[in-house]
């Protein structure tokens, strides 16, 4: 298992290199000179030329790519064209904000999605099954920005239950230490602020959880149905075992592999795909960071931002693969 992990980590290098190259080439295919975009429509031709030169964008692409790569090897993610700050310094707070939100969203999605899937499979073709699967279908096709605005309008404004936007109470802000506000508030010993942060997490968490929740519910249901039809479950039931245990222990454990795979994939997707949720809920996350960079053709930020997400994505998949062995002893890593 240890050597497997090391090998997987080793194979990360070509994957990330390939990613870096593809992203590098793709963003250069977008029309629009970054210098022009940064300086705006009313900039003079000289200013645009000077900026292009200063940014090194007049050099051939392979020299630019080589500069970028050699920087990467030294741990340098480049300097943002727009703000002139190192990406490695800038990216942290955005990444932490997204990780906190994605974690909460995944907790919501897994707890509700898995249980809805199990119960639907247990009572297959019951009203619960139908309702749950119809809701899952709606969840899959729900436009996130619409859902987010509706949540704000109904839950925060009409019912006055939760705040509409932000990560904390802006009038009494949290001091950022780790960037994970749930931890920061506890470090500062502010329990009231901790609950404030949780309140701010619920609405965007639900909005972001909707699609993975639906996918997880459907995957759990079909995986469970398959297992529950197998011989060993029939045996367990024939022996008079209580249905609850049959379902939640024996069946679920065996149905878990595809569910964990889906959870892993969805978690990775959440990291980069939270742009709409972040925009609506004033959440300063990495999705918005990269999206803004694309609009302003901020090459280093786009490149490194996507690279960081790709890295996390691969790491999550590694964790998922390692979990397989823990779930199913038949799987061994050599």
């Amino acid at each position, binding site marked *: 298992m240890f050597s497997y992990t090391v090998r997987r980590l080793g194979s990360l290098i070509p994957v990330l290199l390939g990613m870096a190259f593809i992203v590098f080439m793709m963003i250069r295919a977008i029309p629009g000179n970054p210098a022009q975009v940064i300086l705006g429509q009313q900039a003079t031709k000289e200013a645009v030329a000077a900026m292009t030169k200063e940014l090194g964008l007049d050099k051939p692409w392979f020299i630019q790519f080589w500069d970028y790569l050699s920087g990467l090897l030294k741990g340098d993610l480049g300097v943002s064209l727009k703000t002139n700050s190192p990406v490695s310094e800038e990216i942290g*707070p955005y990444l932490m904000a997204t990780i906190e939100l994605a974690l909460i969203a995944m907790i919501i999605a897994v707890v509700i999605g898995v249980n809805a899937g199990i119960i639907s499979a247990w009572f297959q073709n019951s009203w619960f099954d139908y309702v749950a699967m119809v809701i899952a279908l709606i969840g899959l096709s729900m436009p996130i920005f619409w859902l987010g605005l509706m949540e704000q309008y109904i839950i925060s404004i009409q019912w006055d239950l939760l705040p509409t936007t932000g990560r904390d109470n*802006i009038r009494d802000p949290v001091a950022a230490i780790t960037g994970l506000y749930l931890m920061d508030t506890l470090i500062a010993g502010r329990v009231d602020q901790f609950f404030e942060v949780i309140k701010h997490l619920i609405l965007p968490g639900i909005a972001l959880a909707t699609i993975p929740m639906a996918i997880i519910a459907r995957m759990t249901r079909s995986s469970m149905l398959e297992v529950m039809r197998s011989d060993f479950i029939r045996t367990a039931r024939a022996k008079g075992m209580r249905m609850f245990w049959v379902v939640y222990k024996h069946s679920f454990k065996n149905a878990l592999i595809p569910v964990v795979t889906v959870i892993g994939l969805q978690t990775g997707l959440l990291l980069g795909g939270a742009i709409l949720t972040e*925009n609506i809920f004033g959440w300063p996350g990495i999705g918005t960071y990269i999206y803004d960079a694309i609009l302003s053709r901020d090459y280093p930020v786009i490149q490194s931002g996507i690279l960081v997400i790709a890295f996390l994505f691969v790491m999550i998949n590694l964790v998922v693969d390692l979990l397989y062995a823990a779930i199913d002893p038949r799987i061994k890593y050599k």
Partner: protein
Amino acid sequence: MKKTLALLLTTILALSLALAGCSSSTSKEKDDDKGGSNEAKGGVLIYGKGGDAVSLDPAIVTDGESFIVTQQVFETLVKYGEDNTEIKPGLAESWKVSDDAKTYTFKLKTGIKFHDGSDFNAEAVVKNFQRWAQSKDEAKFAYYASMFGGFEGDEGHVIKEVKAIDDNTVEFTLNRPQAPFLKNIAMPTFAIASPTGFEKDADNFGKNPSGTGPFKFKSWKPGDTIEVVKNDDYWQDGLPKLDGITFKVIKDNSARLNAVIKGEVDLMDGLNPSDISKVTGDDKLQIFERPSMNVGYFAFNVEKAPFDKKEVRQAISHLINKKEIIDNFYEGTAEPAKNPMPPSVSGYNDNIEDYDYDVEKAKELLKKAGLEDGFKMDLWAMPVPRPYMPDGQKVAEAIQASLKQVGIEANIVSYEWAAYLEKVQAGEAQSFMLGWTGDNGDADNFLYTLLDKDNIGSNNYARYANEEVHKLLIEAQSTADEAKRNELYGKAQEIIHEEAPWVPLVHSLPQLAGTKTIKGFVPHPTGSQSLVNVSIEN
């Protein structure tokens, strides 16, 4: 001498430390009584905006999201009027212009300090201008280069020398007269920053700005919030009224409004016209309308037939129903335009009478031009929404329908935005829609930039050339006397109106929403303003 200096510095240091201690303790007090009443204090205003600042160094930024913050921290030598672009004293209390309009002598206010404790004086002003002029860094100080014709040593450079006469007197010598000079140095980008600040660490000055403004920079959470707090040593007594301002980024316009409705945000810019009814229907909220400094227009390429005939251009001017366009596509948030520049800019000629919507008059004029049966034409429509034009395609369709009444068949043409601009600039379009947002609130920035023969191939997309207009505009450029300039611009507008190279369509009005408790907020046409007079009343 050295000893006194050391003593002085120590005192300043001790004072600033004590002050820092004070301010942090007040903020703690506020934490404790949050939710309670705070009538004795001004309170903290939460300002919702659509994007984060790029940098807080005003000299290197060009975007409104940065300026709305820097304008609280920094001040300029002269400033614009509260809701117009007339020039008022700022850090300079008075100024004199020499007869040849080449020397400007400013008397500075005394006793002002930068937030880092250093003195504001003539030397500081000189150092700021040197920082820009001597940098020769077109990429960094782009606005300086474009407003003052390049950098020190360049042929077109306007500013020859900036000299400190004494501690409180600064003299600017120009290479040639530049009439909008005062309006230029009133732009928020030319605010005076603390030389101690930008000399010590130029790269990080944008993250740790220090000016003379009513608010001091406190913190910046990237992509999230920027906090500024009251400058207790501010030179105007009793100001600012607020204890601080927190700028909160919420990208989505509707979500930002939701935060205002919920009371999490006090004031927001970028209200969707379609959301106006939500604000007016809520008795806790109010709408603020920003005076317009833009123009959206429909123009003819006067070099292409049949638009080389004045009668045809006038005929079409009579055919466009501006009121209907505003009602249908701007939800009423625009005013009809009759001149190529908005009324908020000084020099606006209000005596001009717009071409009324009159189909019969149009028919007569077409008959005069020998085109009573109509003709076919291309109408270029903008592919993207702009502040002055929310939906180019729809407006083009409305114009198309109007033209049909007299037998003119307009074929709507469109390209991707960058290509559209390029082709219009190259003179390929027969008629087209476009617009302009002012840079410095000067008539020159509209009339000369957009309609002088010098700018054909640049921003004069209509390719309109008129000797008389040219003479007036050039004369106005080299006159420093505001009244005289306004007269010249008034005349130029008369000729342009008569010649009708454009159909000025609208001046759109950006909308802001805030709680009713906000007092003293006056939105400025330039797009952002100091909040020094704003207060929150319970």
